[in-house]
């Protein structure tokens, strides 16, 4: 074997090591927290021990010595736990969890190939102390009866669980044996090609319909029609299958919360039961990656502001431990993720006074607003109701970032709260980012696409229905007044002046009416990025190619509304 080939092989092995060890480390967080609740679960202890042991073994071959060092001493402590020489106290768990964190850091160095080393002294010393103290206790207990000790059986590496029943962890480990790993870039390129195929299919369908109109009696046309129909079905299936390959279970993000909630609860002196539901729900990989940080922020908020300490809870007639529920479920073309707590709920009066203080809204403004609209102020940049800033949350940055991150993914946020009973924040997210249903509208000679998920109502309009209020054009429909945007003004497109329809669109609690010349129908389109050069164009989120080969711009609803505010200011 040549040296180069051998190096490639090593590189691949290291990549495998990173992926597989990271999975084990992620699993360890959950297992260790479970262990805190059931410190005597022998199967669990064995599974934890084995994960650390496995990482150590492979790291040894690859000469990642710092990983070996940390894993080795952690394994030692775990072995003592396993053999009943130690019991899992919170302090010991802290030390082990810290070691797992350190392993993650070291793994990140391996991944980045930066060759960096960490100062391991603290992590190692903490574990060493535990190890030594156990030894001492053991020595004292075992004084004078060395003859009786039978290390042969007790030291049996892993033999202890041989006869035990299969634990749930082991089942999980077994399940993913029939999978292969594929570089995400390859999947993306397949998805991209399927996107092109869908565009081609759409164009072919359009042409085939035209052909039928013109030469309907010809047999050849019938054949082309049938073939196109089959191609259509297969393309749709293919598109779905490819999208599915990019799906990952929500457990991928949920798995980090047990550890986080535990640490935050301990730090804040709160008792929190975390309930995870629907972890198997699958979402597009990109969305999974993007919603991690917003979710972390929402969970931190719930723990910091929502859930009370045990004393406060008891005096309010609640159980000492608060419940935080994270759930994910699938409905229609959307995935919903909800963060629910049974804490004190949001104080609408506090939000009102804060909004006045920050000059976000006047008292009179808020008199006219619904409770939901007022609640939505928490997403306003610079808004924070926490009277004191803690290191967990409440720096006044965040909720607005959460909101814009979710909006970027074509999703939305909904808040429900009940004073004294808790709050629920629900994120609505699309199944995939690549394909959306749009409403095609005409403005002058141009065609634009509006994401159908944001469209609430379409209305034919007579010119005189447009009124002016406070110097702003509005439209009145079903007893609601909507601010009006003329798409032609905003994008600078010419208009033939027909102005026949308004499309009422919404994002969050905000609704606006958009004036267009014509409605061209609904179409499923593949979003193409505008490229870096045009990525910041306000009001436009991307482009697509329609069945008749035209390039159409996709309207960015949120950007539109921001654009509108700006126009009003001027």
């Amino acid at each position: 074997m040549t040296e180069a080939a051998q190096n490639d092989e090593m590189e691949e092995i290291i990549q495998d090591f990173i992926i597989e060890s990271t999975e084990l480390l992620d699993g360890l967080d959950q297992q260790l927290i479970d262990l805190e609740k059931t410190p005597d679960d022998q199967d669990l202890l064995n599974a934890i021990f084995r994960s650390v042991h496995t990482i150590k073994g492979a790291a040894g071959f690859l000469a990642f010595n710092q990983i070996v060092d940390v894993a080795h001493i952690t394994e030692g402590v775990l072995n003592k736990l396993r053999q009943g020489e130690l019991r899992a106290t919170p302090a010991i768990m802290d030390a082990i969890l810290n070691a797992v964190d350190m392993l993650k850091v070291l793994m990140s160095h391996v991944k980045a190939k930066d060759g960096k080393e960490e100062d391991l002294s603290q992590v190692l010393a903490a574990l060493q102390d535990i190890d030594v103290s156990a030894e001492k206790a053991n020595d004292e207990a075992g004084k004078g009866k060395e003859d009786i000790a039978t290390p042969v059986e007790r030291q049996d590496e892993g033999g202890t669980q041989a006869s035990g029943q299969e634990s749930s962890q082991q089942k999980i480990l077994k399940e993913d044996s029939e999978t292969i790993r594929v570089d995400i870039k390859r999947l993306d390129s397949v998805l991209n090609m399927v996107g092109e195929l869908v565009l081609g299919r759409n164009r072919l369908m359009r042409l085939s319909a035209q052909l039928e109109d013109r030469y309907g009696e010809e047999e050849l046309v019938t054949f082309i029609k049938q073939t196109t129909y089959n191609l259509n079905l297969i393309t749709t299936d293919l598109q779905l299958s490819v999208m599915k390959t990019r799906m990952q279970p929500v457990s991928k993000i949920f798995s980090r919360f047990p550890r986080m909630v535990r640490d935050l609860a301990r730090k804040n002196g709160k008792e929190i039961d975390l309930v995870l539901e629907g972890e198997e729900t699958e979402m597009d990989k990109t969305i999974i990656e993007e919603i991690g940080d917003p979710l972390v922020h929402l969970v931190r908020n719930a723990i910091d502001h929502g859930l009370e300490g045990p004393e406060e809870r008891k005096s309010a007639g609640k159980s000492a431990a608060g419940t935080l529920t994270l759930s994910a479920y699938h409905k229609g073309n959307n995935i919903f993720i909800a963060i629910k707590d049974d804490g004190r709920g949001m104080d609408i009066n506090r939000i009102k006074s804060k909004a006045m203080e920050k000059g976000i809204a006047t008292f009179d403004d808020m008199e006219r607003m619904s409770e939901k609209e007022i609640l939505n102020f928490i997403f306003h940049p610079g808004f924070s109701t926490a009277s004191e800033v803690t290191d967990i949350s409440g720096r006044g940055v965040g909720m607005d970032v959460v909101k814009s991150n979710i909006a970027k993914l074509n999703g939305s946020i909904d808040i429900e709260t009940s004073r004294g009973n808790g709050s629920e924040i629900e994120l609505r997210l699309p199944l995939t980012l690549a394909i959306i249903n749009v409403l095609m509208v005409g403005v002058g000679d141009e065609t634009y696409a509006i994401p159908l998920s944001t469209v609430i109502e379409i209305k034919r309009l007579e010119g005189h229905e447009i009124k002016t209020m406070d110097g702003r054009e509005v439209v009145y429909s079903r007893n609601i007044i909507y601010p009006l945007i003329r798409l032609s003004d905003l994008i600078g497109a010419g208009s033939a002046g027909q102005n026949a329809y308004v499309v009422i669109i919404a994002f969050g609690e905000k609704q606006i009416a958009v004036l267009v010349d014509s409605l061209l129908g609904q179409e499923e389109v593949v979003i193409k990025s505008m490229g870096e050069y045009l990525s910041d164009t306000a009001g436009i989120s991307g482009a697509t190619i329609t069945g008749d080969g035209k390039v159409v711009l996709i309207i960015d609803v949120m950007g539109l509304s921001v654009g509108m505010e700006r126009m009003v200011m001027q």
Partner: protein
Amino acid sequence: MFDQKMKILVVDDFPTMRRIVRNLLKELGYLNVDEADDGSTALTKLRNEKFDFIISDWNMPKMTGLDLLKAVREDSNLKDIPFLMVTAEAQKENVVLAVQAGVNNYVVKPFTAVTLKEKMDKIIEKLGG
């Protein structure tokens, strides 16, 4: 000397480790290698296909390397297959148990291709002599 074409079963629950061992074997010229992710899947493979050599990790879920070794030695069709045990530390107690169960040799992690070759050659020599 063992045939380079002999069929080797590598047993380990951690995919990276199987790959490492497989890669070391490749360096030594052994290309006819199959894998199993734990003792029980290994046993099924051993009963369905003919293998000439087993390299197994000790600590695995469900069925450990030691239990696999015992099962192999108790099976009249499999009992003569050379068995090399991979252990984490040279714990004498472990080795004693493995020897009792009829292991041919053991190798301590981490090991190099050279060490692996030495161990395999030793097994081969003994069987030959």
